[in-house]
């Protein structure tokens, strides 16, 4: 797939709606799913809602180094189906990904299947109708789907992050179409994610980490002890094929049953994370048997080789590397959680931004 839009003007005419939809395909403006052709009225509606100048530059998106103006972001948001009230969240996500520590250029081009996961917490979750119940990590809500898709289209159209060149991800995952979830404010038994990240309870905040697709974990929270629930989750973290053997960060999504099981067992958020750090282990011998371990930083490899084979190797290097949130439906015995491994120590590191809604916004 390629784009020829560099030669196209800012506005292109199509003879009717069908032609406009096809234009988006032929010009490479879409990821394969249809988009809403962006016309003047919805683009203007977003810009008027934001109260920002259309030519204001939000940033430069790698690897293509496309200039993300407010207008270009608004165009991609229209294409994704965003309501104007969603766009401040998209802006916050873009700003988060442009922080140098996130290494967006690496995230966009690596062979690893890490995609930016946009996690929303705060009052806007309910006000804007995010899905935090059945299929909270999947389909079913305009807010989740359109915001996630807008972020991906921005990375595609402005950043040039499409498969083949230069995006070389081996498999990717469906989150490359849209990857946006929200924390459930009612079933989360602890402080909200954004408060953990240092923001005020009344803020709406976007947290972004580049991760794999979700790996489901049947915690058995209806019948298991909290210790067993934690062990089941830790086992899914400490996989031989996980990039988290190279360090880095990960996201752990608890369903409400698993969260309640742990909270009722006396664990607070920090306690859950500490246990995951302790329990997400393999032996040094197992790690060294895997020649692919050489992707670790050189000093870590040297230290590893100095250890005895039966010593434990910890996948999570420190508690700060875990983003923990609660969302999803109650379910049945399974008590599902989901582990989303990060890219290792290479990038995609968690960034958090407070969403700036215009006056009278969400």
């Amino acid at each position, binding site marked *: 797939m390629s*784009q020829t*839009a*560099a030669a*196209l*003007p*800012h*506005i*292109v*005419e*199509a*003879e*009717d*709606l069908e*032609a*406009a939809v096809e*234009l*988006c395909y032929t*010009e490479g*403006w879409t990821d394969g799913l249809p988009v809403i*052709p*962006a*016309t*003047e009225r919805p*683009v203007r509606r977003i810009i008027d809602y934001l109260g920002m100048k259309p030519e204001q530059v939000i940033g*430069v*998106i790698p690897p*293509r*180094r*496309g*200039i*993300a*103006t407010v207008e*270009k972001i608004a*165009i*991609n948001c*229209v*294409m994704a189906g965003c309501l104007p009230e969603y766009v401040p969240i998209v802006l916050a996500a873009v700003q988060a990904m442009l922080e140098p520590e996130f*290494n967006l*250029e*690496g995230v966009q081009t*690596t*062979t690893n299947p890490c995609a930016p996961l946009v996690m929303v917490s705060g009052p806007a979750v309910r006000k804007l109708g995010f899905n935090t119940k059945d299929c909270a990590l999947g389909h079913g809500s305009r807010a989740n789907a359109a915001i996630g898709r807008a972020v991906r*289209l921005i990375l595609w*159209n*402005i950043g040039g992050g499409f498969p083949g060149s230069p995006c*070389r991800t081996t498999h990717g995952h469906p989150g490359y179409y849209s990857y946006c979830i929200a924390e459930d404010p009612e079933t989360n038994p602890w402080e909200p994610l954004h408060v953990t990240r240092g923001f005020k309870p009344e803020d709406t905040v976007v947290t972004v980490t580049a991760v794999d697709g979700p790996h489901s974990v049947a915690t058995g929270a209806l019948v298991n002890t909290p210790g067993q629930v934690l062990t089941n989750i830790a086992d899914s973290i400490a996989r031989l094929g996980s990039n988290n053997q190279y360090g880095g960060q990960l996201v752990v999504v608890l369903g409400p049953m698993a969260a309640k099981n742990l909270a009722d067992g006396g664990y607070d958020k920090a306690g859950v994370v500490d246990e995951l750090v302790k329990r997400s282990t393999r032996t040094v011998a197992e790690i060294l048997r895997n020649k*692919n371990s*050489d*992707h670790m*930083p*050189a*000093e870590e490899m040297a230290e590893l080789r100095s250890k005895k084979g039966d010593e434990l190797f910890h996948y999570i290097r420190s508690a700060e590397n875990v983003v923990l949130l609660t969302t999803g439906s109650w379910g049945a015995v399974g008590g599902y959680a989901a582990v989303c491994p990060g*890219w290792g*120590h*290479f*990038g995609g590191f968690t960034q958090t931004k407070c969403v700036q809604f215009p006056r009278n916004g969400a």
Partner: protein
Amino acid sequence: MVIAVYNPVGEVAQSESVRATTMTGLNGRSVGFVFNHHPAVTGLWAELEKGVELDFRPVGVQRIAKANISMPQPAAQLAKLAAEVDYALGGVGA
């Protein structure tokens, strides 16, 4: 009914780097090697460094071994290298 569709693709930002310079030859100049130690190319890189030293006989060699194969090296460190060598080779792998 004609529909005017807005183009979602942004303009490309111009590079901030200084204009390229040309060199008349590499013999007897100082060289810098910036290598990310990607496992796929460690053998190739070793041969490349050997070849450069043999063929161009640099008056000085400096090396940066990146700690992270994917994260950019800190700009200040690269700037220091650029100030101290005549040319540099950057090694990637994927």
